[in-house]
């Protein structure tokens, strides 16, 4: 009973961290499409005196990814209805050039302002129009959700890491006698701490398998039967085989950090 309790005291906090990591991965994947939609749906309007190509815009700011020219003829044809052909030609000649500028990533509004400034610094550019309000509200909501999730995961990870270290200290105390004897006879730190690593690695693998199993079940059984649209649509993003590698890598890293923290916090075992 004590044996199970000792291991659960390590496995549960480690699982909490791994669940946090996996939630984050799933969230990133499921929101990726949404973020892409926001990014692709957003354009800046540039008004220039002379024609410009994409490289000219990119020279002013590297975040510009597309520059789509708006046909002036169609604007003139709308404006110059009922006007003589010679007059419409004059209007066309007097009109500036219009471009829809696309961005390479989903940016904060402050970055958008910077892009606007960079573009307006060019004498050839008469005006830049950003469509900030809807973009800003979407961006803020989206950023807020991401931020809250990250804070929650970090908080959970820190608390769990402390619990793991505490449990490791209990193990260290339990193995104090042998670590002390090994130290006296010249065993290097790695050999002395071997028992801690061994127990922790086994639990790390166990935790990884448990968390993987939970998400595996969620993806293949629960999501399909849940009837929740967003779950069904994003079923593929719920769990990937590569996640097992990420989770295992993370749990081993946590184990190494925890063991070294405990071992180095009091060099040598006191007699």
């Amino acid at each position: 009973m004590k044996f199970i309790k000792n291991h659960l005291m390590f496995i549960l906090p480690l699982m909490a961290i791994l669940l946090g990591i996996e939630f984050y991965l799933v969230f990133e994947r499921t929101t990726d499409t949404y973020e892409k939609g926001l990014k692709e749906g957003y354009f800046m309007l540039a008004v220039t005196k002379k024609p410009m190509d994409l490289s000219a815009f990119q020279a002013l700011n590297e975040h510009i990814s597309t520059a789509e020219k708006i046909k002036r003829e169609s604007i003139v044809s709308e404006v110059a209805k009922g006007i003589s052909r010679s007059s419409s030609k004059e209007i066309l000649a007097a009109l500036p050039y219009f471009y829809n500028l696309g961005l390479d990533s989903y940016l904060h509004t402050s970055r958008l302002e910077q892009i606007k400034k960079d573009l307006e610094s060019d004498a050839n550019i008469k005006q830049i129009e950003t469509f900030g309000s809807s973009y800003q509200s979407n961006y803020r909501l989206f950023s807020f959700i991401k931020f809250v999730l990250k804070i929650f995961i970090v908080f959970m990870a820190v608390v769990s890491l402390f619990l793991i270290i505490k449990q490791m200290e209990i193990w260290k105390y339990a193995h104090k006698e042998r670590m002390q004897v090994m130290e006296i006879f010249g065993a290097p730190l790695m050999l002395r701490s071997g028992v801690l690593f061994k127990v922790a690695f086994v639990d790390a693998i166990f935790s990884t398998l448990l968390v993987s199993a939970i998400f595996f079940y969620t993806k293949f059984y629960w999501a399909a039967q849940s009837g929740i649209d967003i779950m069904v649509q994003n079923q593929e993003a719920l769990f990937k085989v590569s996640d097992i590698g990420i989770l295992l890598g993370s749990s081993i890293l946590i184990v190494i950090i925890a063991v070294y923290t405990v071992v180095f916090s009091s060099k040598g075992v006191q007699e």
Partner: protein
Amino acid sequence: MSNVIHASHLTLTYGNEGKEVIKDANFSIKKGEFVFITGPSGSGKSTLLKALYGKLRPSEGNLVVGGLDLAHVSQRKLQELRTHMGIIFQDYKLVNEWTVKKNVVLPLMIAGYDSEIQDTQARRLLKHVKLPEYADKYPLELSGGEQQRVGVARALAKNPVVILADEPTGNLDDYSSNVIWDLMENACQQLDTTVLVVTHKIPTIFSLPYRHFIIESKGVYEVH
């Protein structure tokens, strides 16, 4: 003969307040010598022994063991030095969840010897300390005298250059004590190992020539 241990102006302090236990001590011990260190309780005998295996660093002066100055030695070098030492404790310091055999071969395990050599050595050592049938038992199944013999076997496992013993017979009856003294005399005679024993009282049955130091009023003095 070369000095295995050399202390010059050695000062040892202990505890958080830095209480001086040994002050300005000077002594040398040669290879193959058997040395007793005696003194009243609390005089600093065990503290000196701790300093000799690097558990306590000298606060002043030099303490050279096996050519390494323990005042300035790195942790890695210290570990290496300890693999050439055999240390025996009054409370045996055996690992209770390990078998007798595993306890005995600990120094070989640390040195990375393969399991076949470990097995051969364990059999030889346990026969030497007259416990050949105890290999698979656990320390707590043994009497105090038997546990100390396991401790001696462990100390001898890697043919150490120095054996340091802290009150090795302090908890034992006369018969067990005599067995332990015999084993240590043999190690000194046959392996040319330097043996340094901290004890309250020098055994009367002791037959080897030995040197005797006494710790008194923070000083280490040789008794002639």
